[in-house]
């Protein structure tokens, strides 16, 4: 699951800036925190964020799939090749500071991925566009952000169509890993070439509909914002600033 999932959770109903501010705070917080316990509290916060959005299961599953290879790499790089002292874990002599480092880095990645996936799943691109339009953000920037949020679901949909078409023409998807890898060619090539071929028309169509206009766009249905949400976004900003101040204070100490 990567993409927007319609719903009625508090995150779905919140102003898009509020949800994005929470995801942003998780991202910035991940780099401000340096101890394994702190980072794993942040992972817990990311999981709570996903749970509030009603997308915990879907987001956690995808986050796990995306984070596991990084975890494996961190384990080898820091846990096995890290500095002394070492502790025995079964047949492995693991580096104690290396494991702590792997836990911090892995926790950061997990928290960031989980937060990002939750924001993707709960921020409707349409509401985000309306919010940014109402805020006077130039359309170019709005389009860049919104199309980034929607590109993966669109590509996935297109890939499914190409896959069906290629299967109708005899493409076999099963078999050995090598055979599966070989099947990627007939999928990836039309996917990329098709997307590139349509870019010209998309640019023309957007231009024809005034996307390049210098007039300030009218927001048709801007999502409601509230004093409480603005206060929450301000509080998150302060929290991140405090976390960084704490980090640098500790570094000096």
């Amino acid at each position, binding site marked *: 699951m990567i993409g927007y999932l319609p719903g009625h959770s508090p995150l779905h109903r919140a102003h898009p800036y509020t949800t994005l501010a929470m995801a942003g705070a998780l991202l910035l917080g991940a780099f401000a925190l340096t101890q394994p316990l702190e980072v794993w509290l942040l992972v817990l916060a990311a999981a709570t964020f996903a749970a509030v959005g009603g997308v915990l299961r879907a987001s956690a599953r995808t986050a796990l799939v995306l984070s596991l290879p990084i975890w494996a790499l961190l384990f080898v790089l820091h846990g096995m090749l890290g500095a002394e002292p070492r502790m025995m874990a079964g047949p492995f002599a693991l580096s104690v500071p290396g494991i702590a480092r792997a836990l911090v880095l892995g926790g950061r990645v997990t928290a960031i991925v989980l937060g990002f996936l939750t924001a993707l799943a709960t921020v409707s691109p349409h509401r985000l566009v309306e919010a940014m339009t109402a805020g006077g953000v130039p*359309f170019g920037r709005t389009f860049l952000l919104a199309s980034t949020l929607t590109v993966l679901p669109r590509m996935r949909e297109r890939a499914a169509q190409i896959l069906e078409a290629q299967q109708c023409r005899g493409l076999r998807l099963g078999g050995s890993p090598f055979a599966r890898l070989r099947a990627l060619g007939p999928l990836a090539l039309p996917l990329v070439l098709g997307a590139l071929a349509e870019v010209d028309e998309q640019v023309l*169509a957007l231009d024809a509909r005034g996307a390049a206009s210098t007039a300030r766009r009218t927001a048709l249905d801007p999502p409601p914002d509230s004093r409480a949400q603005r206060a929450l976004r301000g509080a998150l900003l302060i929290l991140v600033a405090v976390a960084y101040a704490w980090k640098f204070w500790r570094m000096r100490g």
Partner: protein
Amino acid sequence: MTALVALEGVTFTYPGADRPALADVSLELASGDLLVVTGETGAGASTLLLVATGFAPRVVGGTLTGMRRIAARRCGVVFARPWTQLTGLCATVRDEIAFGPASQGLPRETIRAAAGRAMEGLRIAHLADREPARLSGGELQRVVVAAALAMEPEVLALDDPAAELDPEAADALYDVLPAVAAAGTAILVATPDLERAARVARRAVALAAGRIVARGAPAEVLGGTAVADIARAAGCPPPFPVDVPALLRRVRR
């Protein structure tokens, strides 16, 4: 009457091309015109649309020589593949159609009224709350045409607009065009669908290798095929059917 678009000896070459896509083309388009452009694939009909509406070379690049004057303040363009013309940012058909007027910064009431008129004109008011990505190709093409009309263009270019439509929807689309032209919009249609084009067009031009090889009344220009000659010899009233299926349909009627 003042021409909305005037081309005189225009030659246009795409970037990197070794020969021009349009050569020495002269054409005038006035308010209320309904001009059909036809020719073999690669004859330059689509390019003529882009040049006449100002999108070439401004958006697509390339070089243009000769005299081109575009007095129209707003030009719309619709391509054959409707899915490439969606913004991807709108949750409903209503918002998709309102995208263009919203780009012009018009007041909300004006935008909603323009979108409503366009939907009524294309008989798609019942689709207003549907998600654009979930529509059929035929429905989508009508949405795209309505989106172009909602901007109230002075010149509307349609590039093979019925390519994705079933015969009934194609008839419905072509039936709308005379009313749009009568309201003052100059319409340019590039299409291989000569029978439908002949039914609605006021003028026609035929292109070959980027040059205009015939121009005049639709029956004269579009009827220049062997099938049309047979129909003419048989005393069939114009517009003459231009291919065998069209001739058979006419005979059955």
